[in-house]
Structure formats: C-alpha cells, structure tokens
C-alpha cells in the first residue's frame, strides 16, 4: 500500500502549497521604519499634504470611532456632523492635513478592533484612547489631543457623595468601564477593600449606579458632567483625582496602525492645533468647565 502513504505525503505538500497561496496582505501605507521618525510621506521639510499622504483611499481621510458615539465627545451619535469635542478635533486635524470637510470618511470601529493586529480599516481612530507605553507596542499613537482628568460620581443621597478624601472611599463599592484609566484610578489610587465592578460600557455602569449596585463610578471629567447633567440627574460629581506625582499626565491620543506613514504628520497636526489655541477653543465650545470639582486626595 505504498501508494496510500505517497498520497498522504502528496496531500500534505498540496496543503502546504495551498496555504502558501494565501498571499500575505498588502499593508498600504505602512513602511518599515520606526514610528514617529520622518518617513517617505513626511520628509524633513517635506509636506504633510492631502495628495502626498498615503491614506487608505486616495484623497480621502478615513477616521474610525466606536458606535454608539457618546456625548459630549460626539453629538446625536453622528460623528460626521462636526459636533462634539472629538468630532471637531478630527475635522480640525483633517483640515491641518489639507483635507476638505467632504473628504473625511467615517468608519465604525469598535474599541477592541482599533488595536487588533492585521490591516486597519482607518487612517486614524478617535475614541478617547489614553496613551500609555504598553499600547505604543501594539499601535501608533499621536500626540495627546486632550488632557484627561478622572472624576467620581455618586448618587446625591449616598454615603460616597459625602467623601472628601481617598480614605473615605476605601469601603465603597466602586465601578468603572473596562479598558479605561478610570479603572486604574480605582485600583492604583483608591485601592478599595471590595473588588471594583468593571463594566463593558458606561451605559451599564450608569444602570448599576441608578440601581445602587455600585456606590460610585469613576469616569473622565467631561463624561461625568454629561452624565450628571443630562442622564442620571440624581447623581452628582463628588470630586476629581490628581495625577500621582511622578506619573505622566494622562492624555487621549489618536490611534494609527503600527508604523503608519501618517503618524508623524498627524502628530504634527495635533501639536500645531494645540499651539495655535484651536484645541482650547474646541474644548471651550464642547466640554464643560471643570473648575467646580474639588480634588480628592
């Protein structure tokens, strides 16, 4: 029966050929070079202009964000209307790179897909992604476009609402959204006695807060003002947290594919927007002023 084992061997070889026939994906716009260095698209003194940039679609800028798109970062769950902080920032960056408003294409990208390996479906993704070193190993992140402060919200009549220090929160049942620095604040700064509740979406965190299943939740400041102002009006902002001394300031960054040719241009655009005051103006327009919240130490 030699012919049978020969057939098996032949089949294996065929399988190998078929598998190697799965052509590797062409990753458009990715160049082998370390991120952040000047690449072919952005030579020193070269141009970060719409026609020189190797975007997903020629002459278009594809921007990703999660759905639903939450206020105050977006308005009416429609990222393309230019309303809301992140929508406005995305259009400002696009403008800096020389794209007209009509050349910006929005793409639905779930939070978890924004950092999945493999070809990306966007040029950059804007989704309140905090910058940290671990994440930089998986994706490129632009310069920070927003300085984040974390705050605590609780129902007005609860014990947690009377907290004036971190120590007052030790015994509380706290909650935060998965993948956020809010969760790190609970684990690293407050270090409560009970394990915190971790929610997939802020909607679930809000429901648990209303039901009294958690005493308080930690969210970033604009979200806190939006929740207490519009969604859970029986809750209030208790206070905000300081970045621990020596820790890097927390910032949101735009997500790009690892080693994307656009990273340096997008970062330059964000930096320019910060310098000329555009970011501050957009923040004033869309995000509540944070002066009112006392600091919990």
């Amino acid at each position, binding site marked *: 029966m030699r012919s*049978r*084992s020969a057939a*098996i*061997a032949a089949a*294996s*070889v065929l*399988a*190998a050929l078929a*598998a*190697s026939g*799965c052509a*590797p*994906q062409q990753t458009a716009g990715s160049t082998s070079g370390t991120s952040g260095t000047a690449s072919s698209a952005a030579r020193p003194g070269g141009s970060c202009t719409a026609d020189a940039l190797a975007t997903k679609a020629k002459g278009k800028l594809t921007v990703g964000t999660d759905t639903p798109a939450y206020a105050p970062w977006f308005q009416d769950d429609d990222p393309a209307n230019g309303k809301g902080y992140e929508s406005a920032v995305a259009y400002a960056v696009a403008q800096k790179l020389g794209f007209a408003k009509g050349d910006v294409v929005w793409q639905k990208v779930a*939070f*978890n897909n924004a*950092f999945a*390996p*493999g070809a990306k479906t966007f040029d950059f993704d804007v989704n309140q992604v905090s910058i*940290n070193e*671990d*994440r930089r*190993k*998986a*994706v490129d992140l632009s310069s920070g476009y927003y300085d984040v402060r974390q705050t605590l919200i609780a129902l007005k009549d609860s014990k947690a609402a009377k907290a004036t220090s971190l120590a007052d929160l030790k015994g509380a049942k706290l*909650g935060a959204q*998965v*993948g956020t620095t809010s*969760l*790190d604040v609970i684990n690293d700064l407050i270090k409560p006695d009970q*394990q*915190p*509740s*971790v*929610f*997939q979406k802020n909607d*679930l*965190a809000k*429901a*648990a807060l*209303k*039901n*009294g*299943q*958690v005493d308080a939740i930690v969210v970033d400041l604009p979200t806190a003002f939006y929740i207490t102002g519009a969604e859970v009006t029986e809750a209030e902002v208790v206070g905000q947290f300081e970045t621990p001394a020596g820790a890097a300031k927390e910032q949101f960054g735009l997500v790009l594919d*690892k080693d994307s040719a656009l990273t340096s241009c997008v970062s330059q655009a964000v930096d320019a927007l910060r310098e000329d005051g555009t970011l501050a103006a957009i923040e004033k327009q869309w995000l509540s002023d944070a002066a009112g919240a006392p600091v919990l130490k």
Partner: protein
Amino acid sequence: MYRPSQRRIERERYKRSRTRRATAVATLSTVLTLAVLFLVVTGSPGWPRTKETFFDAEYARQALPLVLDGLWLNLRLLLVCGAVTLVLGLLLAVTRTLRGPAFFPLRALATAYVDFFRGLPLIICLLAVIFGVPALRLQGVPTDPVVLGGTALVLTYSAYMAEVFRAGIESVHPSQRAAARSLGLSTAQTMRFVVLPQAVRRVVPPLLNDLVSLQKDTGLVSIAGAVDAVYAAQILSSKTFNYTPYVVAGLVFVVLTIPMTRFTDWVTARMNRRQSQGGTV
C-alpha cells in the same frame, strides 16, 4: 492442553505487523502535517507581529494570577448553579410527565416555563434579571450582581436540563411502567423506583454536556461588573492592547474542561458495563 495452531500464530504475526505499519504511517503523516502547519504559520509575513500580540511571555505572567482569581468566581457559580439546575430541571421534567387531568395546570406551567427560558437568549435573560430586578426597588430582593447573574443562569439552564431529563423519562419503555404497576407499585413509586433510575442513567452524557456548557457561560455574569476569568483577561488586554491574556484564559478553561470530559467518559463506560452485566454477547 491448548496450543494455537501454526496458522493462527501466522495470522496473529501478520496482524501485528499490519498494526505496526499503520502506526508508523500515522506517525509520519502527523509529523508531516505538523511540520507543514508550523512552517506556514511561522513563515507568514505577520507572524512576528502575531507572536508579540498573542504569545507574549511577560503579559502571560501578568495575566495568569488575575485570570486564576477570576476563575474562582466561575467555579463557585458552576458548583452552586450546577446543583440547583439539576434539581430544578428534574422537578420540571417530572412535573411535565405527570399523568391525570387534575395536573393539567401544573403541566401547562412547566411547559410554558421551559419553552420560554429555552428560547430566550441567555444574554437578554442576564440583562433583564441583573439590571431589571433591582430597578423594581423591592425590599429584600438581592441586588448583588453575582447572585442575580447566577439566578439568570439557573433560569435558562434548568429549562435545558428539564428537556434532557424529560427525554430520558420518555425513553423508558411503557412495559417497565406496566410491570411496576402490576407488581402493585403506586404511580409515584413507579416513577421513583423504576422509571427515574433508568431515565437518569440514560441521560448522564447530555447532562454533563450541559454542565460543561454552563461552566463556560458562567463568565457571562461579568456583564454586571463581576470579574471572572475571561473578564480579568479582557481588563488586562484592553489596558495593554495585547491579546496574550485571552490566550491564557482560554487555555485555563480548556484545562478545566478536560477532567470534566474524562469524567463523562468514565461515567458512560461504567454505565455501559453495568447495563451489560454478565459480559457483552
């Protein structure tokens, strides 16, 4: 004094040689297949990136203690919910198979319950129980998400188990019932001493199947914020943008399921031995 004939010895030798040859061919083809798979995977252009993202030793080291912490929640839920669903499922099945017109409302209720909770997607059941029940603001009703989540699991899985038990009860031949009744056993006694022992024995494998399924679904309780093994992995993954914690959690679950599967096989084998007392024909 029996001595195998020359022909028999010859035949056995030939059989042994065939077996050896088959083993050798199987080994060779397995090695070849694995080698080809290995080369295809590690030779793919994205492999270095994939390796970093899914198989990073450092992140695995960070993830393991967190995942094992979470696993404790899975195991507690499995033990409690598993026991409750078995009892409740059996009760439902017995209720559905009650005879006599007086029991009609009970039968109808049990049938309605099973139909509803078997059809209701588990995730919706969990959401409704975990976030809906506390919203009622009733005194004395628990708001602990783990208790509520466990309740939702019991609701769904007892309906599954009820169907399995019912299939077992109905598979017992009517002659068994008739024989028991003719010996003077009451309906209840017939059920208790004749029908149920045979019925349960027949459906042990599908029951254990449901238990393994329940073991994996215990993780869905994390929708309420409780941290189980898979969720612990997700928390670390979304912090670091690295998928290794998921791989660790997946392997932990597989390792947990293997003893369960072996146990199922052993139970089945033992049952078969018992049913064919006196040896197979």
